[in-house]
């Protein structure tokens, strides 16, 4: 499950264990992209081919091309997601082109949420979401193993209680 090697970041002397997401997340996302894009390609091809002319049906290649592009992009995006539990805060890194790094001190957590939709459940995935009093805090970790998600939830709420600070 660990994709990143332990590495040093801003704080010296603290070994960080970065954890990545489940590979199944890429599969789910690819599946969704393929299903949607195939549907779109079929609709475009049929509509344009029947209504305008057979040559115009070539526009159906556009969704297919974008699906192929997304296929690679999704893997890169998946690789960029990682999180680390430090002594006092949770670190989440994500994004390839638009990078974002979030630090949430445990004491500020108001609520930890574990969600899992029907498709996510089918692939054995769960999402953990952290809420603080600030609405802008966007700390979501998708594509976790359900057991790991539950462990994280319990640990986070336990740590949050111990360091509770509220507003």
């Amino acid at each position, binding site marked *: 499950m660990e994709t990143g090697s332990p590495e040093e970041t801003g704080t010296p002397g603290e070994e960080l264990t970065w954890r990545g997401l489940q590979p199944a997340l890429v599969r789910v996302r690819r599946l969704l992209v393929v299903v949607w894009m195939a549907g779109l390609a079929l609709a475009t091809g049929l509509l344009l081919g029947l209504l305008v002319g057979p040559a115009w049906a070539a526009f159906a290649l556009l969704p297919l091309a974008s699906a192929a592009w997304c296929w690679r992009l999704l893997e890169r995006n998946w690789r960029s997601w990682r999180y680390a539990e430090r002594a006092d805060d949770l670190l989440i890194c994500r994004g390839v082109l638009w990078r974002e790094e979030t630090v949430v001190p445990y004491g500020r957590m108001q609520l930890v949420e574990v969600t899992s939709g029907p498709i996510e459940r089918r692939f054995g995935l769960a999402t953990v979401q952290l809420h*603080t009093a600030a609405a802008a805090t966007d700390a979501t970790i998708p594509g976790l193993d359900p057991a790991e998600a539950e462990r994280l939830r319990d640990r986070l709420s336990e740590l949050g209680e111990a360091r509770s600070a509220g507003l």
Partner: protein
Amino acid sequence: MIERRLHPVTPFRRAWAPIAVLAGWAVHDPDGTQQQLARLTTTVLLLGLAVLVPVAGLYGFLSWWCTHFAVTDTELRIRTGLLFRRTAHIRLERIQAVDVSRPLLARMAGVAKLRIDVVGADDKDELAFLGEQEARALRAELLARAAGFAPETAREVGEAPAYELLRVPPRALALSLVLTGATWGSLCAALVAPTVLWLTTHNLWTVLATALPLFGAAGASSAGRFVGEFDWKVSESPDGLRIDHGLLDRTHETVPPGRVQTVRFVEPLLWRRLGWVRVELDVAGSANSVLVPVAPRPIAESVVARVLHGVTVPEELSRPPRRAGWCVPVWWRGHRLAVTDTVFATRHGLLRRSLSLVPHAKVQSVRLSQGPWQRLWRVADVHVDTGAGKTVTARLRDAQEAARLLHAQAERSRTGRRDARPDRWMTSG
């Protein structure tokens, strides 16, 4: 637990509702209203009124009859609703601010409205109306209980003595409004747009339809603000910061200690020569945002020092690296940052400067973001999220500096909390 009722004047407030609905309908559809009115005879009209007014009165009376409130050791309970019962329990130690407001008509009737700001609460949780004395006493009691006084003493503590920090003279307020761009901008719009429309269309109704809202906006941004911010008084008391203002509608706000999430100094271009600033603040769950409408900078800073204890406004703010000009041309010079041992301060804007201060103890989360173009120029943004739903951003910092800042800020916000005062500020504060 003693349940109390609102002031008996309250039903009259509700009696307005059907008249307001009729007026709204008349404004919405003037032609239809005229036709309908022409068909009605005086007797029908009188009969209608004779039915409507008692029904409205009865509704007002019943909804007043069904509304109760009580103060317990830890909560304020409000029970209301005629058909759909609704009970709100407001935890006292979570109170973010208490306002006593007296609209003009209420002032004549000698009653006041009490609003309690709690994070995530509805607008409905206000007590309207209470007798003026009762509202004051209840406000003092709520704050005393929230501060952690025992229930028996809470009522006897009474109103805490207040010490006046600042009073804005009407002349300064008027001058500040004259020197604000928005006042002139809205006035110009109100004069120019209808004139142009008249010259092009010669249609009176179009001109009126545009002129009225524009004049309304111009009035609200100048005269409205003057009336609302008239006789602005900021005072300090053990139960928090008191803000009194208003010419016609008097409002009295109390912000308990330690509730302020961010403070902003706004300096419009024309005020800078006079050295004046406007101070705004953010309190979670509260709609009020102005602390001082206008004041000389040193005085405003001394007020802020009382609001956020031990905070000094940083003088020196550092600029982003020169190459940030490739990401945000010209305006990059306006983005400044300073971090002291008590606050995270950023400033933005070249003409209208706005300096935001966040005490480290109020930081909820810290984020670093970097787009592809920013990465090319090795700069990044650091966002600091606060509990009032406001995010303060230090833009265009050097990428390495931003990474260090991210971790250092998370560390500071964690340790900054340790010496913050407890929610019940009189217990061990």
